[in-house]
């Protein structure tokens, strides 16, 4: 195992779930979805994330079930590799290195040993080609797949712009106003185009394409909301198309049902439309899906379909167009105005979610916990409309109070509302306590609670700073209004200002006795009891961008970052500048559980991280070139239990983890673990099942078979049967261990078979062990004979008896043996 020598920046969930069309497993029990660098597997029944399959070094751009083995999955990535996974076990089987960026992946049942991928054309910018990649059958895990043959030139990069026709007879690709269809057998390429006329509702560029599964019919979606159904396209001239029109804006994706009798379409209207029989007049709708539909995919049995939405949501919809399940990831709003805030109660990351909502995002499970409607107004999807938006959020120390600020952006005077929410233990949610209209005359720039854990509740103070050159202190008062439902409400207690400068930041010291408020170039320190101005600091020129107090042993220091690239540390006792450093700090984030303060700087197109303690001017950790994007926000999230970190350098990561959000809305974190370690399969074990859809026919057949098997003595059937009964834990473990990590069958066989035997009552445990050892020797000689013996042995008891008594006749020694084997093979896989 590699020693954790370096600190790596990793995308930690929250990445978009709509990188590619999602894929249902063959039995429709699992949903596989590309998410950032990972492939995620969800349970359709429980919405739970079952597996995160990582290994790609860049964004996953396409996933496809292996058409020849429905338990395997191909995934392609921008890192130029195609991986074949056993998704039931989450184990990569093979990695094919292609060499160039892969932008989309298609797998066909008809092509035995190749898949199709979209790669950039070498030498030309923004031109792409569809190639077939020959996947070599050679042994070994890492293989080269350099054998590419170009199928189509001049295709679009989007995976939605290429579709394969029935039985892989043809491939159709759209780009701008052109449709090209290539017939593999005849090697004929037909090109069609639609007129480029711009209508009122937009242009008629192609946006997506889908092929009918059984007929020669291509459905294309257009930017003006039309869907065209092309037929007869093997004729260059006598081709024809019909038009379906319901969408008023771009058709984002199309999918045919399994039989091809109906067509699903979706767009920015957030409505899933089901077209029956390609008729303009027979259609059904599933409206109010929340946000624009990005991808639609159908399960292979047609029972379910799923839509991926732009706000990182997966909606699973059943075949009669009823909403079934939804899986919500991190919603990426265009502008995270609230910053990254950690909810002290749930340790969830809190930030802007849907418009006007606050989302609570659980980092561990990469799922949204809940969404709190703050604005409580209908959101109208319309360009150019000023919407009320959430701009500031603050939690009190225990998470009991939540303060939010929302504003409607107007040119001259913004409409502001400060809301205070009380956590209701009964309903387990936040309840609106006080609403303050226009708390300031200008934008609110910062807001904080007095963070005093040990003090009783009435000492809770909220401070807001505004562009109207004041800061205001809000306190709880007894509500005198007899009609009010609650006993307390919030009101303004003190208004402070300093030389009519705009107040920009505020911060309480750890013990709550001091309040620091920055007014443009000056930091003022106030006594939080008497509201006297204690002292001021400034470091001209440059306005104060961020301030924070030091914590624990460093609580006598106040840190400030200025516009002109200075990081200053003032000593509150001596009222003097302790040290300053030249650093263009964008984000200044203190760790709530230690003295460490993280500063992220932006210099010449790269972000760098500096971690320091205020008492010493030398940073304890520097990471240059943290990432190429500008980091906007950061937050320390306390760990559930302190992590054991070997290196002295990374001790600051022991108690909390640093998360940061880039301007491309990607959530990243720092990890000391190596790549392999992060990839260990999750502890959850999936039941091994024949992953085939159960049809009424197979049920009928199964019933018949079961009767047969009960009569017969077929060992395999019996084993399958035994699984349904409550097994001994050893057998269960043996069955649940993935096949490829088990030792050789000849080694396991005697133990397993012995476990199936009904031990004689007079036989002691010692004897059984002896027998096992003896038999294991024998297996090496001849295993066939061995099986014969067992079959013979099994003939004596009646089958019914066998089923009943199979349960716990395994000796302790045997269990131990099996456990040992399991331990061995785990080390064997980790060595891989």
């Amino acid at each position: 195992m590699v020693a954790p020598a370096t600190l790596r920046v990793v995308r930690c969930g929250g990445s978009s779930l709509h990188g590619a069309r999602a894929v249902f497993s063959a039995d429709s029990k699992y949903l596989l979805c590309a998410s950032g660098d990972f492939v995620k597997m969800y349970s359709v029944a429980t919405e739970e994330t079952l597996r995160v399959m990582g290994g790609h070094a860049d964004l996953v751009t396409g996933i496809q079930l292996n058409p020849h083995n429905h338990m395997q999955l191909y995934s392609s990535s921008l890192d130029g590799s195609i991986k074949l996974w056993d998704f039931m076990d989450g184990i990569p089987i093979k990695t094919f290195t292609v060499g160039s960026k892969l932008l989309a992946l298609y797998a066909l049942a008809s092509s035995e040993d190749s898949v199709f991928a979209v790669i950039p054309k070498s030498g030309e910018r923004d031109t792409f080609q569809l190639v077939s990649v020959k996947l070599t059958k050679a042994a070994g895990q890492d293989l080269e797949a350099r054998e590419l043959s170009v199928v189509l030139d001049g295709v679009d990069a989007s995976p939605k712009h290429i579709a394969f026709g029935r039985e892989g007879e043809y491939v159709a690709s759209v780009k701008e106003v052109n449709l090209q269809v290539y017939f593999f057998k005849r090697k004929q390429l037909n090109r069609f185009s639609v007129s480029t006329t711009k209508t009122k509702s937009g242009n008629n560029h192609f946006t997506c394409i889908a092929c009918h599964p059984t007929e020669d019919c291509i459905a294309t979606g257009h930017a003006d909301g039309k869907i065209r159904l092309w037929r007869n396209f093997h004729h260059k001239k006598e081709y024809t198309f019909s038009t379906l029109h319901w969408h008023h804006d771009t058709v984002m994706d199309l999918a045919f049902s399994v039989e091809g009798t109906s067509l699903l379409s979706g767009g920015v209207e957030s409505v899933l439309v089901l077209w029956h029989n390609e008729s303009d007049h027979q259609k059904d709708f599933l409206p109010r899906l929340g946000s624009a539909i990005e991808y639609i995919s159908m399960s292979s049995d047609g029972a379910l379909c799923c839509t991926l939405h732009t706000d990182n949501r997966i909606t699973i919809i059943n075949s009669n167009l009823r909403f079934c399940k939804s899986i919500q990831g991190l919603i990426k709003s265009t502008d995270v105005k609230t910053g990254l805030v950690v909810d002290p109660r749930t340790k969830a990351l809190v930030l802007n979610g849907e418009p006007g909502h606050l989302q609570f995002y659980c980092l561990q499970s990469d799922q949204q916990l809940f969404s709190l409607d703050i604005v409580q107004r209908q959101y109208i999807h319309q360009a150019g409309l000023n919407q009320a938006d959430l701009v500031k959020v603050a939690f009190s120390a225990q998470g009991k109070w939540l303060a939010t600020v929302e504003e409607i952006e107007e040119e001259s005077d913004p409409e502001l509302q400060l809301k205070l929410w009380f956590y209701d233990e009964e309903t387990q949610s936040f309840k609106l306590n006080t609403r303050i209209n226009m708390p300031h005359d200008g934008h609110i720039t910062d807001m904080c609670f007095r963070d005093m854990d040990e003090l009783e509740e009435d000492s809770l103070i909220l401070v807001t700073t505004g562009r109207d050159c004041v800061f205001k202190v809000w306190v709880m008062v007894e509500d005198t209004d007899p009609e009010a439902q609650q006993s307390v409400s919030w009101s303004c207690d003190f208004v402070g200002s300093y030389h009519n400068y705009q107040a920009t930041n505020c911060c309480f010291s750890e013990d709550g006795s001091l309040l620091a408020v920055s007014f443009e170039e000056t930091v003022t320190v106030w006594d939080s009891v008497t509201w006297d101005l204690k002292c001021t600091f400034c470091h001209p020129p440059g306005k104060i961008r961020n301030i924070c107090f030091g914590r624990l042993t460093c609580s006598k220091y106040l840190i400030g970052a200025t516009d002109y690239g200075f990081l200053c540390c003032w000593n509150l006792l001596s009222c003097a500048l302790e040290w300053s450093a030249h650093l263009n700090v964008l984000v200044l984030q203190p760790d709530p559980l230690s003295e460490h303060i993280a500063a992220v700087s932006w210099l010449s197109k790269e972000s760098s991280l500096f971690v320091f303690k205020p008492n010493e001017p030398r940073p304890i950790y520097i990471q240059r070139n943290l990432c190429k994007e500008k980091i906007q926000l950061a937050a320390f999230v306390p760990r559930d239990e302190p992590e054991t970190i070997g290196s002295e350098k990374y001790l600051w990561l022991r108690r909390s983890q640093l998360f940061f959000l880039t301007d491309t809305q990607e959530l990243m974190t720092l990890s000391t673990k190596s790549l392999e370690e992060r990839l260990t399969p999750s502890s959850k074990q999936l039941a091994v099942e024949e992953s085939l859809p159960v049809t009424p026919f197979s049920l009928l057949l199964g019933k018949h078979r079961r009767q047969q098997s009960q009569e017969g003595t077929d060992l395999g059937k019996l084993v399958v049967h035994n699984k349904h009964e409550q097994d001994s834990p050893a057998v269960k473990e043996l069955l649940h261990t993935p096949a490829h990590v088990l030792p050789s069958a000849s080694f396991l066989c005697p133990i397993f078979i012995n476990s199936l035997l009904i031990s004689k009552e007079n036989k002691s445990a010692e004897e059984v062990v002896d027998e096992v050892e003896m038999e294991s020797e024998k297996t090496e000689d001849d295993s066939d004979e061995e099986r014969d013996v067992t079959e013979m042995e099994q003939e004596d008891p009646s089958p019914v008896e066998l089923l009943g008594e199979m349960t716990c006749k395994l000796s302790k020694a045997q269990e131990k043996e099996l456990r040992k084997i399991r331990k061995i093979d785990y080390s064997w896989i980790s060595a891989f």
Partner: protein
Amino acid sequence: MGEFEVHRVRFFGLVPAGVRCLACQPRGGRLALARTDGAVEVYNFAANYFQEKVIPGSEARSVEALCWAAGERLFGAGLGGDITEYDLARLCPARSVDGCGGPVWSMAANSTGTQLAIGCEDGSVKLFQVVPGGIQFERNLDRRKGRILCLSWHPSDTRIAAGSIDILRVFDVCSGQTVQRIMVNYHVQKVKRECIVWSIAFLSSGTVVSSDSFGRVQFWDWERGTLLESHTISTSAVLSLAVSEKEDSIIVGTSTGATYQFQLLPVKMGSLEKRWVRTKPFQHHTHDVRAVAHSSTALISGGLDAQLVIRPLMEKMQKKGYDAALRKFTFPHRRLVSCARKARLLLFQFSQHLELWRLGSTNETGKDGEVLPLCRMPEHLVQLKSKGPEHIYCSCVSPCGSWVAYSTASRFHLYRVQYEGDSISVKKVPKVPKLLLPAYQLQFSADSGSLFVASARGSVHVLQLLEPGGCKLLHTFRPPSGSPEAVYLLAASADGHWVAAVSGDWAIHIYNLKCFKHHCAVPAYSCAVTALAIHPVTNNLVIAYSDQQLFEFSIPEKQYTAWSRMVQNCGLHRVWLERDSPITHITFNPKNPSHILLHDVYMFCVLDKSLPLPDNSALLMNQSTLKQLPENARQRQLHAFKICKKFQPLLFADLLDENCLVMVERPIMDVKTQLPLPIQQKKFGT
């Protein structure tokens, strides 16, 4: 182009009648069209869809169905209960036979054109034998209650499918028995509305296609009586349906004005399984599409908004050209307005009356494009109502304005109009000579002294007009070789020497009026003549053909002029040749002999023979660009065609004097307001 004072006339309240039915001549190049007022028109595909023949309607005669039988014979049947055969040479109903079954709703001819089947109000389907000189009743098929709204023969002529209300039936022609009845609304549960089968087609494969008032197009297996496919294409009724001759394409028309094409397409490449797929929707009409037809290269639809739309099938086109463009015809291809130049009067012809208007006048002058205030408003002088149910064939006002003549199918009227100050007296001229009626075209001579009457068999009558109100027949010209077709266009020379006549076989004969004898015939050209006129100075005959060619024929020299030969050698501009509508009127500027003024529905053109012809690379409609050029550059850009598209749709244009034009427009919006309200449809965003 020259500057003109233009009378922009918009008081011609013509409302064309809606299209009721269409019939494509099988394997032929003609399309018969019947309008709701009973008029029957024949369009010639070969002559650029020129409206070749018009048989004006009659109040007493409605046409519900038209069909071609026995080659070129056209039959119509209507709610009067008669089956009428039309005489396409004499342009009048030839003979009628009573169907004896009440109003006739539908009629269809079998594939060989030997038998006609009619569907009547009383629910009977009757067969008629087409015999030379008429039709003969053959027998009745099995009669049930409910009017038969549509009929279709199986191509083998052994079975007939008939659509009625809620039901469609298949008859065996030999036995006359109903062999299949299919309830059409069986599949619509809980709907008490009756389902009207508006149109039906029997395909050779045994499939019956029906369109009904529930907006469905359904495909039935007639033998089993089962539904093969059902396409709901509209929320309102599907009124009409037509199948191509190859039976691979169907056009249907709906009451919302939309038409749809269905195509029989292979489900998979190379497989024999085919399916009907609704492909292209078209929205050319605003009102009910009562009639559709499917020619081999185009989809044709006619609606109650009086439009005939010809939508070519691009995939059947070999090259881009005249045939590959969408055509819409709303107004007739002939002139309904005549102008008394000297008296400044306009005579408007409606289906059953005439209106005589005096043009307004102004004293003011202004710059280009200015609207001048009128000092005298245009005045409606006289309305002449024709008596009887027959519609007017043609009408004319003399250049002096004192004579007005019109003709119906059986009568010819000549009126003497006298103006005494503001009062007007109209006196019918008694004792008009007995002529061979109807008259197809009337033309007064330039001096208003005589009237030329175009008549059947290629003959032209010359009537001398006598003061104070009388007339006598001077002479009747007949083409020397004889002709079965009627004369439909006349042109008289200004000096009173010549008259030119065009008959239905497109032969142009020129007669000498001084010695009353046939002068010569213009060399035959294989296209319909749409307009002709004799130049007042040079006595050159200018002829416009429906393929947009222009010829100039010198009458004295009996040959084409040098200019005309030059035009034929150089060829006309491509844009000119691809124009939509035929030239309907030609006139001349006597002050400027090299100018020819011509117009169609969409443009007015001054053709200057003294200027070079444009080649295909030049801009044909260059008037607006010319205006912006400096003088010397303009001289280089000038070409013979000076086109003005300001007045649309233009029904008539004439030169009153050397700098005064009259333009008669009929804005489409004005026509639309006269039509009943279309079906209300929800439009997105309204």
